[in-house]
């Protein structure tokens, strides 16, 4: 029968249409009984991006935002440990691996020098990332041996000017890093502690 295929297709679109309103009804009931909302709530977004999603699946950005997974990567930042009295202990030693591995070559590092002696010291003198050129590949954080440069989660960086980030803009505390990537930070801390313990044991053995 001519037109059967069209009707079959229309049944699919009708089911989608129906499901959208049916979902609304279900969520209205849920809201009454448990207080959970379909829009503007974490449960609602999780439901709309799960295998059970039915009907309309739009996320109402910017009122709603999809949660970013831990591994999500956007423009890098530099991690510092908070020392006594607010001192910033920058983890970066300005070894330059990130600048060498960077595919679009958007990282610029001035190696630090000791102002008293003029000798190089393991601290960046200056650090620039040209965020307009950065391609968010994550190589810098992947190959940094000191866990000093990490990829951020903040993706809303639109601006009227060029995004050239200097040290001041790039430095973020370790607590921020632990906040956005708890599992990674815990794993790295563990590895660092193990390394230090091994070093201490070795030094002890050498002293004995």
């Amino acid at each position, binding site marked *: 029968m001519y037109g059967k*295929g069209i009707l*079959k*297709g229309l049944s699919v679109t009708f089911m989608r249409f129906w499901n959208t309103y049916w979902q609304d009804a279900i969520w209205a009931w849920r809201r009454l009984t448990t207080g959970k909302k379909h829009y503007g709530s974490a449960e609602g977004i999780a439901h709309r991006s799960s295998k059970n999603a039915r009907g309309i699946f739009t996320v109402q950005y910017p009122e709603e935002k999809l949660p970013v997974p831990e591994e999500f990567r956007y423009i890098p930042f530099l991690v510092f440990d908070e020392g006594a009295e607010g001192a910033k202990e920058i983890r970066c030693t300005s070894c330059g691996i990130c600048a*060498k591995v960077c595919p679009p070559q958007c*990282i610029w590092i001035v190696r630090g020098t000791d102002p008293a002696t003029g000798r190089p010291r393991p601290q960046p003198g200056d650090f620039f990332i040209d965020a307009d050129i950065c391609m968010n590949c994550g*190589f810098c954080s992947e190959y940094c041996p000191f866990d000093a440069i990490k990829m951020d989660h903040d993706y809303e960086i639109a601006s009227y000017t060029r995004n050239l980030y200097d040290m001041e803009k790039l430095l973020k505390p370790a607590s921020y890093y632990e906040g956005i990537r708890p599992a990674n930070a815990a794993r790295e801390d563990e590895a660092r502690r193990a390394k230090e313990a091994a070093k201490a044991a070795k030094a002890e053995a050498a002293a004995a």
Partner: protein
Amino acid sequence: MTAPASSLTIDLAARFPGAVSADVRPGYGGFIVPAEKLIEVATAIRDEFGYDLLSAVTGVDYIADNKMEVVYHAFKTTGGPAFVFKVQVPRENPVLPSVVNIWRGAEFQEREAWDLLGIKFEGHPDLRRILMWEGFEGHPLRKDWKEPFFEEEVKPFKSRWPDGKHTFAEVKNPFRDNLQFPADFDPEKVTFTDPEEALYKSLKKYHSETRDGIETDHILVNMGPQHPSTHGVFRAVVMLDGETVVSLKPVMGYLHRNHDKIGERNTFLQNMPYTDRLDYFCSMTNNFGYALAVEKLMNIQVPERADYIRVIMSELTRIQNHLIFLGMFLNDLGAMYTPALYAFEERELILDIFEEVAGARMMCNYFRFGGVARDMGEDALRKARELVFDRLPGKVDEMDRLLTENEVLVSRVKGIGYLSAEDAIRTSMTGPMLRASGVPYDIRRADPYSIYDRFDFNVACRPEGDLLARYMVRIDEMRESLKILGQALKQIPAGPIFPGKPQYQVKVPAGESYGRVESPKGELAYYVVSNGKPNPYRYHVRPSSFVNLTSLEQMCIGEKIADFVAILGGIDIVLGELDR
């Protein structure tokens, strides 16, 4: 994995004694054919030895030896490894005969070699620039050509560390100071000849004729570069007789950024995120091909779990690419947005997995030489299982129900854009395009890479050779991908995902390699030459969208202009890959 890219089971040197010799450079394979014997040898390779599918034609500039080399990779559509043969010509006057009459699929790639390297192919029907514009000075892939904003031969640049005071590129290297003009070029006195003249001349001639007492003319129509049907900045120049296409030429390169040259400046690892940007729908399979090519050179073994993750990722990529294809193809046919948005919903769920595992939805940059960047966590595996076992099969069926039997769709695509099996092979079609013409050629089966030989799946194939067949092949292929995914997700073992410690500078022994994968759009291959340094000496991409356009004219001739839109949509091109 360890076998060289070419098989030496056929001794071409014995067949042509005195003329053809084996390539004995360390790390290289195949045969070197003298330019004057090329046609004779190539005909024998096709007709006597059965290598009917010419995959890639690559030019390489060996500036130290003062030679240009053209490398041909030919395959049998019945399966098996590549047959590699090369022609070396002097660098000052690189001229060799064209093989277009033997394999028509060489047409665009020979034009590319002429455009980027200045190698002349005698007997080529239409040897014009293809990616750069007419009137461009020089051949950019030659080793002595330098781009504007040139800084150094290779990355990493010395200005970045240890004294990296940031300067903007245009301050350091003002744009006008670094342009190359022809020797006698004077911008004040120049008079332009129409650069399009050669293009229009390549079309069938305008001619007037009188029919039923009325004088009729052919019309020349430029579809694009800005046209909603062309999937980006792509242009087709069409000669029309009324509504019927008489002749057609694709014009491309509007998104050209010379990926190959950037690749030569980069280190091996730095190329990985750039491959994401080729076919931006399928970054995982792009990574896969490049990783395979370099792993062949490095001769390293990939751990079991990493191989499984690679297969899972590329099959998920295939499903989401085909979903997008269905949506966009229907969009081209005029079904605005409903199928496209249904497709996008499922794609979003797949991209969620990519984001969780690789860190980005589209530019995944996930593969490394020897493994993958990160392990696929339990949560991501659970999500993948839920999708593959509970959701996607039903959704593929739903798309099928929504569209396949629709009478409007069927009348629009059935019998349109016919391409016979012989023509498809001759024009080097690959992927769904070739399989829709009845040639069951799938690299996953024909020349298995990674661990594809372990899975049980069918090669989706339809004999009709029209648009409907191309559409159906994609639907079948999604079902087959789900089969593979189901097996991979059940079998995935625990274990390491990377051998040894990740290195940011990899040691790649000198030699050549050709890594190819069955990307959702066809054969995606990388030809990589290493000279032992940290940067590839030559890095060439054989993009499926680019070569698949060879048959566009043939499919369109005799069809209506409105069908051109559908036929182009049916090839499933992505401009990022096409223009590179």
